[in-house]
């Protein structure tokens, strides 16, 4: 008895569909069982909401100085919250004014948008390229694998921040180039993860079956191997978002990332660093924002890892 190709595909899909749905259910259930992951998800959800509705939440334009204010002492003005006793005739600034007389709260809120975009975009670029490299290396093996992975080793051999600064120096300072630099230095991590997954999956029976049925290498990679190797990538990518936010903040702090007047948390800390003694709140709030966002993605990443690891399934 012989099976036609479409019927084989249908059979394979039917076989894999059910466990996948079950895996998703298990994963979600496992994540929700972990308090830390739930905390991470909650923070992330809040960040996403803040980022999406930044224009509504922020009471002022983030990049506009209060040009009408010219009184001495308004620079680095401490928070003025009416509920906490700030006189009603004073304009409310929940986190005070920064060194350029801009509303710090509005800038922190808009900073969420910038930071989330940075994290997601950077990791997406790194995952796409890293996955491609890792998949090709792992599936091809031999010389191709050797060349690609040694290239990744070279990139990994440099401290990531130093390499990123070098790249930005060559490309020119700016947020886009900083994101690109962080993406480039992150590629090897994803390439390695992908390669390892491909190596373990490529000898599986269903891959051998596909190969025996004459499916092309691209087809096998994209339809058979990749879906089964995505789990570790998702975990690594989630953890990577937090790292990317932190690294871009670091680049902005040293002056090669976001450029004025962008409301980016690392740059905000750098801009107001000399008001450390007189207006420490200007360092505190963006710092807390960075910490929370990195923490959120790390908690989610850890939760995902535990949830997707069959050995840890309860």
């Amino acid at each position, binding site marked *: 008895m012989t099976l036609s190709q479409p019927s084989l595909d249908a059979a394979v899909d039917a076989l894999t569909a059910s466990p996948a749905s079950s895996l998703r259910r298990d994963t979600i259930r496992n994540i929700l069982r972990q308090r830390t992951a739930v905390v991470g998800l909650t923070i992330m959800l809040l960040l996403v909401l803040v980022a999406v509705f930044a224009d509504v939440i922020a009471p002022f334009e983030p990049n506009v100085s209060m040009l009408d204010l*010219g009184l001495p002492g308004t620079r680095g003005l401490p928070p003025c919250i009416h509920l906490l006793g700030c006189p009603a005739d004073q304009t409310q600034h929940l986190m005070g004014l920064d060194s*350029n007389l801009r509303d710090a709260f509005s800038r922190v809120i808009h900073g969420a948008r910038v930071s989330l975009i940075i994290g997601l975009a950077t990791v997406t670029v790194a995952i796409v390229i890293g996955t491609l490299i890792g998949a090709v290396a792992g599936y091809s093996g031999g010389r191709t694998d050797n060349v690609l992975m040694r290239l990744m080793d070279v990139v990994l051999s440099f401290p990531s921040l130093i390499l990123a600064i070098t790249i930005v120096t060559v490309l020119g300072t700016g947020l886009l180039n900083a994101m690109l630099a962080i993406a480039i230095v992150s590629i090897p991590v994803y390439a390695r993860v992908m390669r390892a997954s491909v190596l373990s999956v490529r000898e599986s029976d269903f891959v051998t079956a596909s190969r025996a049925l004459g499916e092309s290498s691209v087809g096998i990679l994209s339809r058979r191997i990749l879906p089964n190797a995505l789990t570790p990538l998702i975990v690594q990518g989630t953890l990577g978002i937090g790292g990317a936010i932190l690294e871009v903040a670091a680049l902005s702090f040293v002056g090669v990332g976001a450029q004025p007047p962008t409301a980016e948390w690392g740059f905000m800390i750098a801009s107001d660093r000399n008001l450390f003694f*007189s207006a420490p709140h200007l360092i505190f709030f963006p710092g807390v924002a960075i910490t929370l966002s990195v923490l959120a993605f790390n908690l989610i990443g850890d939760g995902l890892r535990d949830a997707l690891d069959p050995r840890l399934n309860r």
Partner: protein
Amino acid sequence: MTRSPWWSRTALVAVTMIVFAACGGTTSTASPSAGAATPVPSAPESVAPYEGMTYPESGEAPCGTDGYTGNVKRISATDASTVVFELCNPDVAFLPKVAFSPFAINDTAWLESKIDPAGTTNQAIVSEVNGTGPYKLDVWNRGSDVTMVRNDAYWGEKAKTEKLIMRWSQEGAQRLVELQSGAVDGIDNVGNTDFPTVEANADLQIQPREGLNVMYFGFNNAFKPFDDVRVRQAIALGIDRERLLTNFAAPGSEIATHFTPCSIPNGCEGEAWGQFDVAAARALLAEAGFADGFKTKIIYRDVSRGYVNDQNVIAVDLQAQLKTNLNIDASIEVQESATFIDNADAGKLDGIHILGWGADYPDVTNFLDYHFGSGATAQFGAKFDDITGPLSQGAIGTNDANRAPFYEQANNAIKANVPMVPIWHQASATAYRADVEGAHSSPLSNEHFASMTPGTRTQIVFMQGAEPPGLYCADESDGEALRVCEQMMEGLYAFEIAGTAAIPALAETCEPNAELTVWTCTLRSGVTFHDGATLDANDVVLSYAVQWDAAHPLHKGRDGSFSYFPGLFGGFLNPPPAAE
């Protein structure tokens, strides 16, 4: 034959020695006055005549002709301790000029050995120092500190502290933390908002510094759209300088009514700057064809100086004002400090640049001639004849009164041409640990650490805003380099401690003729360089000549710009084509 007893021979020798001693003679040479019957003429001492150097070696500089805009005609060493400066025109500010640190004196042999005529930039003299000052260079740990040790052979009052260490940080907050922790004994430029913190700390003392400086926004007219005077005028009208002063200057600062601070004689002759008129500014922009604004850059270096503490916030506010008031989109470009200065001097800054100037000596020429005179750098592009003309006339005036009309003209022409917009004269301060005796701020930013005693400690550590680009200050213009040089190097004159009066240093006197065109300087005797060489007049001539003559084989240093010499003395001898 019998021999005399031993004691008689001994007695004879002793008597002979006593007689010689009584006559003032010696046992080795006969005295010519010791009763000799025939006087023997003494041999004359064979001292070679002093070969004093004259520069130029033949003739004199072509004053006012052949493209020579300088004011120095000839420099001669007439004997070992006398140097004569002949000028094309009178120079009433000659003494404060020669007191300024770029004109410190180097030893001839040192210059010849540390500058390679075949080399180009970054000569050995940039990182090695052989001066006559109270401190001598121990080691320059690049990126960390410059350490100096007391010069025990100093001709004047010795340094009170054995060791002087200069450190740097561009962060005002870091400087303050270092001072509070006791890691340093003094810091430069207390942050604008940190004055109360320092004043409230009993372990610290603050030393206010008068605002003998100016912070400005400059334009280079070689680049579009700044080649159009209406654009420059529009920006001058469209920037709210009061707002900048109120929010970002240190307490005690003043708005700049003129480029030069008014406490300098003739600094504030002519019309005052001060209009803020957005409608007029927009009309001018529209007239120039930029009704919808344009794109440009704001270029600066992220360092703190006496004239500005935090340039980032200035740049951001300027960016906001340009956009809001004039619809000009300006991106921000931060350059490394030395690169920025070199680019400014070379006329390469194609946007609006933020820069400033601290007084080097209290004369209007230090502000106006250096920036806008015939010998100025290319910072603002092509020179303005209606500025350079009056400045040349003003520089040769013999007193404040007869110079005033020329500076009125020059200041009015500066306001009309707008090569820059002066913003403020900023008051600043140094801060020290409370037990530092003799702590002071200099209005010229050349604090004299040799006169300070840091409690019972054997070293004094001072933290300034940046690392000196080089230590050959003839070829430096950054105050952070000059302050370090001034601890080790000296000129013919110096400035009084914490003051602005020029006082004799390596010269005991510099006396002018009646026309103020010839200055005869008599050198102090017994002055030695750190390597033991003795100061003489030829050292003075060569130290000036290598700066003055752009074709001199030793006219080389860190980048070879030697911007102070033409800025203060009108121009180079044999100016390179680009400087003409």
